[in-house]
């Protein structure tokens, strides 16, 4: 039973991937739709999508770092 933290980390990593994947997927879908409707606004849409994309990625990376910390520190 002493290795239960590894079980939790594995589960948590999966949840991180689901969350980040859903978020990035929704962002990319909305951006693609917007560009398809208005191709001339592609630059503006890409610029507007970039910032939330990186903030989202930052949250996912933070969660991964804490998962790694759980493994290393027990």
């Amino acid at each position, binding site marked *: 039973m002493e290795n239960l933290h590894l079980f939790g980390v594995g589960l948590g990593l999966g949840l991180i991937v689901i969350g980040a994947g859903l978020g990035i997927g929704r962002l990319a879908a909305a951006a693609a739709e917007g560009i398809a409707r208005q191709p001339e606004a592609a630059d503006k849409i890409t*610029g507007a999508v*970039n*910032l939330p994309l*990186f*903030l989202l*990625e*930052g949250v996912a*990376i*933070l969660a*991964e*770092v804490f998962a790694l910390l759980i493994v*290393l520190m027990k």
Partner: protein
Amino acid sequence: MSATAEQDHTAGTSVLDQVGDNIIHHVSNSSLDHPLIHLPHFFGIDLSVTKHVLMLWVVAILLACAVIIPVRRYMQKEKAIPSGWMNALELIVKFFRDSIIKPNIGSKYSETWAPLILTLFFFILFANGIGLLPFFDILGAVNRFAFHIPASDNHNFINSLLHGGVTATGNFNVTAGLAVITFFAIIIAGTRAHGFIHHWKNLVPTGLPWPVYIILIPIEIIGMFVRPFALTMRLAANMTGGHIAVLAILSFMAIFAEMFNSTAIGLSLALFSIPMAIAISGLEIIVVLVQAYVFTLLSAVFIGMAINVHH
């Protein structure tokens, strides 16, 4: 990259026990017990040069050769027509000025903060990129096989270079230092634009009922520290993550060879491991560029938020 080869030589303990330590050893800083250059303690701080400090110096020298000296020489010319490398530099600088600094910071202060943002970008880009080049491993191989110096020789300088990772930005201390620069830049930018007291007042919107402020003021103060913290974690974790993934996939060869007790299975796993490692290395090239871009973009956004207050 030499992780799997080393594991096979050390018999006794199980491979699975060694893989984790080996991976951490290949991405973390070299140990303070065996620094590259011994320096005395100042005020209780050990100033010995470890590998990441050395890599920071290498990056600084590279930046001086690749950016500072060409730009200085170009500015001294009478006819200012860029050519060759200067063209590429101008392209990057112009892209940053027009699509990051001006939209976020505004044209009034863009000249003030462009040097900081561009310095951060070039420094992080070079420090990230140098982590992809395995030249210390090649130096170590030359040392081992051409000059016949054994790996156990701790006093050999090139042997001590083999300890630890080469990506200085994969170290949380380095990125924390860079994020602290951004943290103070935000405060200085707000102070220069609005005055010292007004900058702190700008953190929260005015004209709300007073119970809202009890919640809002702590949130804004936490947010002030969370932003540089997120910058620190994002850059360091991204730079470390790619290396860990490559090493973990290469370690499959050693792990499976031990699990099934046959070298053939381990070698046949190379058909899977090596293409995957190459693919992740290719992905790393994109990550290196994107992370340097993200750090500077977010720095510019945060500085711009302190200057152009939307309340």
